[in-house]
C-alpha cells in the first residue's frame, strides 16, 4: 500500500479531483470529511491530510511514500525528495508586491520584506545582492506594508484580488508554483512498482 500525504487547504480539492480522474478515490469522502486518514476504494492507497508545510516532512521521513504539495512549500522546505511530476494544479505565482510600484528602486539602504516564505525571499534577494531584512509572518501578510511593518511583501498570488484590495501591486515575479507529486527516495526504490503505477495513472490523465 502507498501512503499519499495531501496538503490541506487550497491544494486538497484539486488534488483529490485529479486523483479521482486517475481512478484513485478515497472511499466515502462525504462522511469522512473530518478524518485525517482515509483508504481508497481498492485498498491500494491511503491518504493522509496534513498542513502543507508538513507534507515534505512526512514524505522525507518515509511515513508517507508520496505527497501532493505546492512548489512554494517545497522551495521553502529544502527537503530531500524526488519531484517526478508537475500536476499543473493550484497554479499560482510567488511575487514581490508593494504599495508603490517603484518600491524596489526607491527604498535606500535596506528593504524590509514581510513574508511567510523567508527562505524563498532571502534566496531571491540574496542572489542579486540586495540587502534585506526578512520579517517572518504567518498570515495576512498583505497588511504589513499599509501598517508600516515592511516596504514589500513576498507572497503567493492566485488572482491578485487580495493584493488589490489592500492597495498592493506586483513588482516582481519570483517563481510560478503548481502542485507537485513528491516521492520519498527509499519508497521510489522499494515500492518501485506501486510508485510507477501511480505515476503512470497521473501522467495519462
Amino acid at each position, binding site marked *: 500500500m502507498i501512503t499519499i500525504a495531501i496538503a490541506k487547504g487550497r491544494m486538497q480539492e484539486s488534488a483529490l479531483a485529479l486523483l479521482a480522474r486517475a481512478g484513485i478515490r478515497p472511499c466515502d469522502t462525504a462522511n469522512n470529511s473530518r478524518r485525517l486518514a482515509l483508504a481508497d476504494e481498492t485498498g491500494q492507497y491511503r491518504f493522509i491530510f496534513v498542513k502543507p508545510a508538513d507534507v515534505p516532512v512526512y514524505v522525507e*521521513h*518515509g511515513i508517507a511514500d508520496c505527497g501532493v504539495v505546492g512548489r512554494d512549500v517545497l522551495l521553502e522546505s*529544502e*527537503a530531500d525528495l524526488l519531484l517526478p*511530476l508537475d500536476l499543473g494544479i493550484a497554479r499560482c505565482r510567488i511575487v514581490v508586491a508593494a504599495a508603490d510600484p517603484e518600491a524596489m528602486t526607491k527604498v535606500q539602504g535596506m528593504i524590509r520584506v514581510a513574508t511567510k516564505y523567508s527562505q524563498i525571499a532571502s534566496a531571491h534577494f540574496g542572489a542579486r545582492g540586495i540587502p534585506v531584512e526578512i520579517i517572518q509572518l504567518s498570515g495576512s501578510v498583505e497588511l504589513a506594508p499599509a501598517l508600516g511593518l515592511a516596504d514589500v511583501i513576498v507572497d503567493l498570488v492566485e488572482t491578485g484580488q487580495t493584493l488589490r484590495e489592500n492597495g498592493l501591486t506586483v513588482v516582481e515575479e519570483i517563481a510560478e508554483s503548481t502542485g507537485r507529486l513528491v516521492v520519498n*527516495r*527509499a519508497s*521510489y*526504490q522499494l515500492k518501485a512498482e506501486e510508485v510507477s503505477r501511480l505515476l503512470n495513472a497521473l501522467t495519462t490523465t
Partner: protein
Amino acid sequence: MRYYIGAEARLRRTVEDVAMSVFEGWNYEEVITPSVDYYDLFEQGMGQREAQRGFRFTDNDGRLLALRPDVTSSVARMAATLLSERPRPLRFCYAAPVFRQQTQSHAEWRRENTQLGCELIGSGGKPADLEILSLAAEILSRLNLQSRYCITINNVEIFNGVAAQMNLTPAAREQLRRLIDTREAAELRRFLQEYDSRAGEAFSQPTQLTGKRDVIKTARRLITNERSVAALNSLEELWAEIESLNLQDSFEIDLGDVSSLDYYTGLSLKIFVRGAGTSVGRGGRYDGLTGSFGRAEPAVGFVLNLDALTEVLGREGAQR
C-alpha cells in the same frame, strides 16, 4: 545525540558483529583510524563540499582539525603512504563513528553515525565491483533482511559521457545533475530543449530510469557516445554477474543515481531497506582518490549505517 540502553545496545552490537564477521570471512582486515585528524586530509579525500559538513576546530598552533566526517579518506591515505609497499590488493573494514553537521530539515538528522564499511584497494574492474556487492548482500541477508532490501547500482560515467557530449558549463552541468537526481521530468525536458540533446532524453522518463536489465536496453536507444556506452557495457556485464549469482531480485539499476558524481568514478551504489525512509548505505568506485595521496590505484568500497539498521531491526523486534 542518541543513547542506546540495554536491549537496544545489545541489538546494535549484534548488527555490528554480524557485519564484521562477514567482512572477516572475505579476508578484510579491521582498521582503526584516528577520530581527529587535520581537516586537509578530509578535504582532499571527500572534496570540499562534503568535508565542510565536518565539525572543525583549531589545534594549538592554529592548524585546522576535524572530527572525522568519513573513514575512507584515512584508509586511502594509509594505503598510499604507510602501506605503499604492501602487495595489492588491500582489503580493509571498520566499524567507526563519523561526525557530520546536518541541515535542520533533514531526515538524516544525526550528527554522529557509526559506519560499517569496507575498502578494496588496488583491484579494479568487474570482479572487485562484484565482490563489494556480494559482501553487502551477504551482510543484509545475514541480518534477516532478505527480500526487504534493495541495492541500486549505476555507473556515473553514463551521465559524465552525456554531459561531456553536451559541452555544458559547470553550472549547467550541476543543474542537469540536480534535475536528474530529483527526477524533475518536466523541468528536465525544458532544460534539454535548449541543448537539442537526444542522449539527455534518456534521463527524462522517471519510470524508465530504474529497473532491471531492460533499463540499459532503453538507455542504449538514446545514448550513443563512446564514454557512456563503455559505462553501459560494464554495467550490463555487472548485471549479468548479479543474475548469475541469482541476486537480481535484490538489485535494481538506477541510472538516475547521480548524487555524488565528483567522488565516484565508475560503479555507484545505494542501499535501501524497508522501514527506513532514507538510504541505509552507499558506496562505489573511487579510482581518483588514492592518487590525491600520491599513489593512484583503483579502489572500491561501501558503508552501511549501523544506527539506521539498528533502528529498523529494533522497531521490528518491538512489533513482534
